[in-house]
């Protein structure tokens, strides 16, 4: 790992204090986010805020399971985010496919397709776990260890291969989209 310059260290400090989050939700995972945001747990006190578009976001929160159809969107969204960007895999679905692991269309392991910085285990993880994960991510950022975005750049070919293997072609191109 390259040594960070002073500016980068300062920047990492700032980045760890201001985490703007884009959450990809399939349903059950998103259930746990409102309590995290609202008065009970209040994630804004750590500078974490939900954002509307990938352009503005720093982290991509993947809650719940992915399938071949949604994975395209996730990859696409991830690529639209500005560097540096981080990914949190939320719940066991992103780790091993969760309860739908044996479905023909379920993506079992997110890590093959985009680099994940932090996983949150559980089905479902409690808000405390989410906050814990954020704290952990902040720590990693501060240390400069949250380098998923760099890994993605370096190993782009590998990620691409995985994506193509699973999806056939990453960007949809058929008669409906012309």
């Amino acid at each position, binding site marked *: 790992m390259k040594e960070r310059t002073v500016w980068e260290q300062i*920047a990492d400090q700032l980045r760890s204090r*201001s985490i703007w989050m884009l959450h990809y939700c399939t349903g059950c995972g998103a259930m746990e986010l409102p309590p995290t945001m609202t008065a009970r747990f209040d994630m*804004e*006190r750590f500078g974490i805020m939900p954002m509307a*578009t990938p352009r503005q976001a720093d982290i991509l929160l993947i809650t719940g399971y992915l399938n071949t159809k949604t994975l395209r969107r996730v990859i696409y969204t991830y690529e639209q985010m*500005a560097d*540096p960007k981080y990914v949190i895999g939320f719940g066991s679905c992103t780790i091993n496919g969760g309860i739908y692991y044996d479905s023909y269309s379920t993506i079992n392991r997110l890590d093959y397709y985009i680099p994940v910085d932090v996983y949150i285990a559980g089905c479902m993880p409690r808000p405390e776990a989410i906050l814990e994960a954020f704290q952990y991510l902040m720590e990693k950022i501060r240390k400069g260890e949250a380098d998923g975005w760099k890994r993605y750049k370096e190993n782009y070919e590998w990620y691409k291969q995985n994506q193509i293997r699973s999806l056939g072609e990453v960007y949809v191109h058929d008669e409906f989209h012309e």
Partner: protein
Amino acid sequence: MTGVYKAIFNLAIAFFFVLTLEGIGRKITARVQRRIGPPWYQSFIDVFKALSKHPFSNGWIFDFGVLMALGGAIATAAIVPMGSTFWTPFPNTDNFFVIMYLFAVGALGMAMGMVGSGNPWASIGVTRALTQMLGYELPYLIVLASMMFYYKTASIHLLIEKQAGGWNLLVMPIGAIVAFISLLGMLGKKPFDIAIAPAEIASGPMVELSGKYLGLLHIMHVFSIFVEITLFVDVFLGGGNFWWFLLKFLIVWILAVLISSVLPRFRIEQMLKFYWGVPLGLAFLNAFFVLMGWTL
């Protein structure tokens, strides 16, 4: 030459003070909602973090628009008098209309750049912002026009001097109330954050902004807030010396934040109907009172 120094001071105050206030505002909102909220310096972190990221640019008009927006906002913030004749950078040029329209340069730049990003959400947001402008500007301008008629001047620092006997808030309270309601719209605070409704149109004009573009526009927004509230403080609260000015600024800001933290969002035509209803009527009532000489 002193004008230039004062202008630079203006900008510095605008940047640091308003960013601080933003943090305070978020804190207050959090407290209203029984949360703890971020620290007061959170906005600084946000701005500089945004600036530190590696952004995407959607073409030269996108860049140009952002620069024009910030440039316009800086130019406007530089000529606004801060509460007293002494803190007036350019006493010959602090005409109200000049400020209002110079302010529009920034808005236009932002609108152009954001629509230049090619994203329809941005266009929708901008059209909403423009429509909203149609709503809040009219009552505001009528109140200001009646004030200029009353004092026979449009120069802000002269207006401040004329209030030595009593604040306009007390001289024409109706006008002040209308202006404050318009101010809420200008600030884009909660019942009137139609343009950047994040849940509806993916934060509207800002949809394509990443990294430093977001940061620069945030700074522009900061200057805009400074101009808007400063105008209100100068024209209605009698300005005052530097510290008084800051205090009044703070109070106005907190009031706006408090109101916005408990209200939901209007729909666009609801907003128009609202502004063209009671506030506009009151503005005309105020103008009528001024014409008749019935001021307090």
